[in-house]
C-alpha cells in the first residue's frame, strides 16, 4: 500500500539543484499540481529533462517563468519564447536532443544499458563531440543514458499499490521516465482500488513508484 501525500509535502522532498524528469508533451500529460507546488515553494536551480518547455503558463512553462530551471535537456523550446530569451541571456543552459534520442537515453538510464547507438543526429550539430561507433559497417552516435533524482509523472489512474495507467497522447515520456529516477512521484487523475487496473492494463508497475500525489491539496 502506498500513501498519498499532499503536493506541499512532496515538493519539500525536492532539493535545490535536483535533476527532474518531467513527463508531458507541450503540457499534455504533465503533472501540473506538482509543478504548481514547486513554483509555490520557490526552491530551484533544477536540471529539467523533458520533451519541451511547453508554453508560458502551462506545465514546465511555469517553472521557466518562476526562474527555477538552470538547465534544460529537451527536444524543443519553440513554443516558449521565455525559454529562448533566458537561453540567450545565459540564465538557462539548454541542451537540445532529438526527441527519439532523448526518450531512448532516458530508457537506457532506466533499464541499465550503457548508452544508445542511433543514426539520428549523425552529420549534424547533435553529433559534436560524441563518439561514433561502427557496427557492421554502419555508423551510429553513442548517446549516454540519462537518469533523474526525481521523476514527476502524470497518469490516468493509480491503484493503492502504485500501479499506473495512462490515457491516449498523455502517455508520451511518462512510462519511460517512471523507470529512470531515484524517486518517482506520480500525479494520478484518479486513485482507484487494487484490481481496478487489471494486470494486463498496468503500464508502470507499482514497485517503480515511490509516492502518489493525494487527491486534495
Amino acid at each position, binding site marked *: 500500500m502506498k500513501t498519498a501525500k499532499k503536493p506541499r509535502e512532496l515538493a519539500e522532498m525536492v532539493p535545490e539543484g535536483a535533476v527532474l524528469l518531467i513527463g508531458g*508533451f*507541450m*503540457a*499534455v*500529460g504533465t503533472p501540473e499540481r506538482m509543478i504548481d507546488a514547486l513554483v509555490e515553494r520557490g526552491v530551484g536551480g533544477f536540471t529539467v529533462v523533458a*520533451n*519541451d518547455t511547453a*508554453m508560458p503558463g502551462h506545465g514546465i512553462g511555469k517553472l521557466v517563468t518562476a526562474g527555477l530551471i538552470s538547465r534544460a535537456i*529537451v*527536444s*524543443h*523550446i*519553440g*513554443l516558449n519564447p521565455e525559454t*529562448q530569451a533566458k*537561453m540567450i541571456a545565459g540564465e538557462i543552459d539548454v541542451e*537540445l536532443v*532529438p*526527441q*527519439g*534520442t532523448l*526518450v*531512448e537515453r532516458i*530508457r537506457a538510464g532506466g533499464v541499465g544499458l550503457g548508452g544508445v547507438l*542511433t*543514426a*539520428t*543526429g*549523425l*552529420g*549534424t*550539430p*547533435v553529433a559534436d563531440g560524441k563518439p561514433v561507433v561502427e557496427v557492421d559497417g554502419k555508423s551510429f552516435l553513442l548517446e549516454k543514458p540519462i537518469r533523474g533524482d526525481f521523476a514527476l509523472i502524470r497518469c*490516468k489512474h493509480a491503484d493503492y499499490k502504485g500501479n499506473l495507467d*495512462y*490515457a*491516449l*497522447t*498523455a*502517455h*508520451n*515520456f*511518462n*512510462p*519511460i521516465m517512471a523507470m529512470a529516477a531515484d524517486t518517482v512521484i506520480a500525479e494520478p487523475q484518479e486513485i482507484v482500488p487494487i484490481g481496478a487496473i487489471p494486470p494486463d492494463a498496468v*503500464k508502470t508497475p507499482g514497485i517503480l513508484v515511490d509516492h502518489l500525489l493525494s487527491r486534495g491539496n
Partner: protein
Amino acid sequence: MNAKEIIARRVALDVRDGMLVNLGIGLPSLVANYLPDDVDVFFQAENGVIGLGARPPEGMEDPDLTDAGGGFVTAVPGAASIDSAMSFGLIRGGHLDMTVLGGLQVDARGYLANWMVPGKMVPGMGGAMDLVAGARKVVVSMVHTAKGEPKILPECTLPLTATRRVSLIVTEMAVIEPTDDGLVLREVGPGVSVEDVRAATAAELHIVGDVPEMRLT
C-alpha cells in the same frame, strides 16, 4: 490555387493505401485534406497516437488527445496509443512509411535543413531528426523560394537535420527527386516552365526527357 494547396494536393497523390504517415505541423498537415476517399491510411502523431483523426466537435475536446502541435484531435476507430519510446521506435525502426516535413533548405545531395537558423531561431529539432533518419520515404514540402531567394541550394548553409538523402522535394513549382546523380526535375508546377524552375533554384537540376506538369488530383 495558392502555392500551399498545389503542394498539398501533389503530395497527397503519393499517399498509398495502408500507409502509416506522419505529417509535420503547418503546410504538411494540409495534405490530409486532399486524400482520395478510397485511400485508407493511418496518420501518426509522434507524441503518441497511431490513427489520428480530425479536430473534434466543439466541446468534445479531450485534453489528453492532441497532435504533435498540441492541437486537439480525435482518434479513428482502430487507433492505438503509444508512448514516446514506441513512437520513435516505430519511426527509427523503419515502420513509418512516409513523413512529410517542411524545409528551410535542401541541397544537391538531398540533405535537408529545417530546424534552426543560428542566432535567429532555435526552436529545437523535436522529432524532425528522427523522422528524416528513420522514415521509409521523406517528402519535403515547401514553397520554392523564400522572399525570392532559392531554398534549393548546392549545399545547405543552415545546420543539417540529417545526412540522409530525402526521397522527394515538392514545391508549387516543381517535383524534384534527389538521386545518386544529383537533383532530377521530375515534374513542373501548373503553368511553370523548366526554365522558371531553373531560375528559382540555386542547385543544378538534371532533366531527363520531357518534364510533365504535375497532376493535382
